[in-house]
């Protein structure tokens, strides 16, 4: 067998601005499942603009695959805009909650110190358990699990990733362009052809 060049898969953050429409999540999810691509993380929530939702989707794929996926998403009628970025191009965070027995925290000073060192914040303190919260990258939140495991970690949950694109000036101005029947000279569509490899947009 000839040696194959390694496939350059990389984590990509796909940001999607959409109308708030029933069934759209399904329509977007199917674009991935049809191609047998696993979604590693998915967050959808209202954006800064009323009526517009923002999806953050993380997949581990090559740039070529991601760019084609982005176009297929963009093609959906209720999707306004799609961007994709590597991890270097975004600031991203995940939030994690940890439930630990209160007596352990109270008795072992070391645990409290560990929590503080990891930037954890107490959300709820009850007689039987305490819930701590941290935000950070995957390794950081993973690390705290390892630390708390010997001290009787009861329950753990992590949110999907949310990401801010470093090189972006938001969506307000663009939305106004979308709302015009005849888009202006500066139409967003042109960005696609200007930086074909980087941003997909229409």
């Amino acid at each position, binding site marked *: 067998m000839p040696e194959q060049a390694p496939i350059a898969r990389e984590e990509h953050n796909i940001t999607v601005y*959409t*109308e708030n429409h*029933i*069934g759209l999540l*399904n*329509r977007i999810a*199917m674009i991935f499942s*049809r191609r047998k691509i696993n979604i590693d993380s998915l967050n959808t929530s209202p954006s800064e603009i009323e009526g517009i939702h923002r999806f953050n989707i993380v997949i581990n794929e090559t740039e070529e695959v991601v*760019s*084609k996926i982005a*176009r*297929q998403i*963009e*093609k959906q*009628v*209720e*999707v*306004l805009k799609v961007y994709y970025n590597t991890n270097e191009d975004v600031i991203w965070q995940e939030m994690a909650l940890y439930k630990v027995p209160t007596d352990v925290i109270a008795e072992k000073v070391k645990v409290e110190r560990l929590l503080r060192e990891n930037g954890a914040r107490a959300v709820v303190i009850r007689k039987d358990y305490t819930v701590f919260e941290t935000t950070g990258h995957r390794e950081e939140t993973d690390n705290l699990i390892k630390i708390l495991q010997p001290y009787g970690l009861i329950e753990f949950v992590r949110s999907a990733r949310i990401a801010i694109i470093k090189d972006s000036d938001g969506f307000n101005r663009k*939305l106004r362009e*979308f*709302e015009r*029947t005849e*888009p202006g000279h500066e*139409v967003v*569509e*042109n960005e*696609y*052809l200007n930086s*074909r490899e980087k941003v*997909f947009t*229409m």
Partner: protein
Amino acid sequence: MLTQEKQAPTLPETDTVISGSQALLHALQVEGVDTIFGYPGGAIMPIYDALYDFEGDLKHVLVRHEQGGIHAGQGYARASGKVGVVFATSGPGATNLVTGLADAQIDSTPLVCITGQVFAHLLGTDAFQEADVIGITTPVTKWNYQITDATEIPEVLAKAFHIARTGRPGPVLIDITKNAQLQKFNFQGYTPCDHIRSYRPKPIVRQEYIKQAADLINSAQKPFVLWGQGVMLGSAEQEFKAFLEKSGIPAAWTIMGAGALPTDHPQNVGMLGMHGNYGPNVMTNECDVLIAIGMRFDDRVTGRLDKYAKQAKVIHLDIDPAEIDKNVKTTVPVWGDCKETLPLLTQLVEQKQHSEWLAKFREFEQKEIDAVIREELFPTSAEMTMGEVIQQLNELTQGEAIIVTDVGQHQMVACRYAKLNQTRSNITSGGLGTMGFALPAAIGAKFGAPHRTVVAVIGDGGVQMTIQELGTIMQSGIDVKILILNNQFLGMVRQWQELFHERRYSFVDITSPDYVMVAQGYGISGRKIDQREDLTNALQQMLAHPGSFLLEVMVTKENNVFPMVPQGCSVSEIRLK
């Protein structure tokens, strides 16, 4: 029974109280719909009840199966250029549409399908004839939406038509719960939609890319145009012809594009792809600039992608940005409606002939005539070939008929050899390859183009998949010519088994009923022939017959369609035998 001419209701004034069903039918009136293909059932009964009063404006064609209904809608849309409209009930009625939706989605056919749905309060309860139609149809529609409140009907229908017909067209499905169909509401009029903020059907054309494309074309020694259905979807046949005639570039078509340029145009060098012509396939890997217009580089066109036109610079004109760079990396993307981009390009290209280059295509054509075509069209064998039937049909129709084909060997033969003088004359299931498409699509095509002769060319396999639509022909009295090319095999699968599976003919030996007798049962005249001397006469009889006619022609059993680009091979490895 009431038989007097019924006057359809006119559009009510604003603030009139009407039902959701009435609002729906008024929407169809305003959108210029004249024909609906459908089948009633429990959850769509209020719409059918209202339809009873609209007969004067909205002709309803009762099909025999919802799949037949949607293929008829597709045939109507493809022949007329208008949006096809299909009605079906909830549950099984709606799921029977799925094949047609997938077919229309992949072949960019504008449809608006209306399905009934159970009462809103029953959604999710596994109610009688309930199916998650929105969930099921999401991947096979351009857009779909469920209406549970009648007040939404005008706006949603307006969006549905706008989405179906603009940009890259496609099927839209609107699922309406029974309560919304019955609900009375204050009708506020109907305004067609021309703008959706999240939907840009076409971009602003970028002049600099037109310039780059023109520069490439002007410096090319061996330019080659590939065109697809986009030329017809954009109604850009004239613009396309003008571009070709000024630039002098030879042009070849995908089966979806057949007929956009007349078959006998001197620059038309033939069909692309797996069973396309010899020259166009070989020359794809010889040309220096490849200009793709409204086509999507399907794998049946390109063969092996990593050996496809690697030597060429590629210019791709398409309205759908997701198609650019999808399969073939583009040097110059000309994103836009070809109705706008082609004239801009024509202005900038130099008037040229490319006679020597064109002559090379003709050399390959001669080789193909000697190796394949002559024997197929004018056979010396005892048994008839599919090709000679199409050849005779060409002689008699003079290329003026609409040819609707099913899927398989007869489809490839018909598409290769049919003479097409006019646009919108070749209706076939290209992307999905849906057997059973032709008979219902031909019915729809005749409704969409009532003044044209419609000939459905169908194999003995495909015709048995939707043969129940003979009932639709019987009841509607429509005039469709049905030409069955019977080789007593599922021929294309058999061909592959012969070539690639050591002639292990696994389950391709298919028997047929007495088609003439079946047709007779439906009150349709028919004839069966197996002798060459009867062919011309039988075809004449079919074409001259007032009303529908079924002609079954027995053709040679084990003929193969050649040339052929075997799967996994490059287009330049095309085989003549």
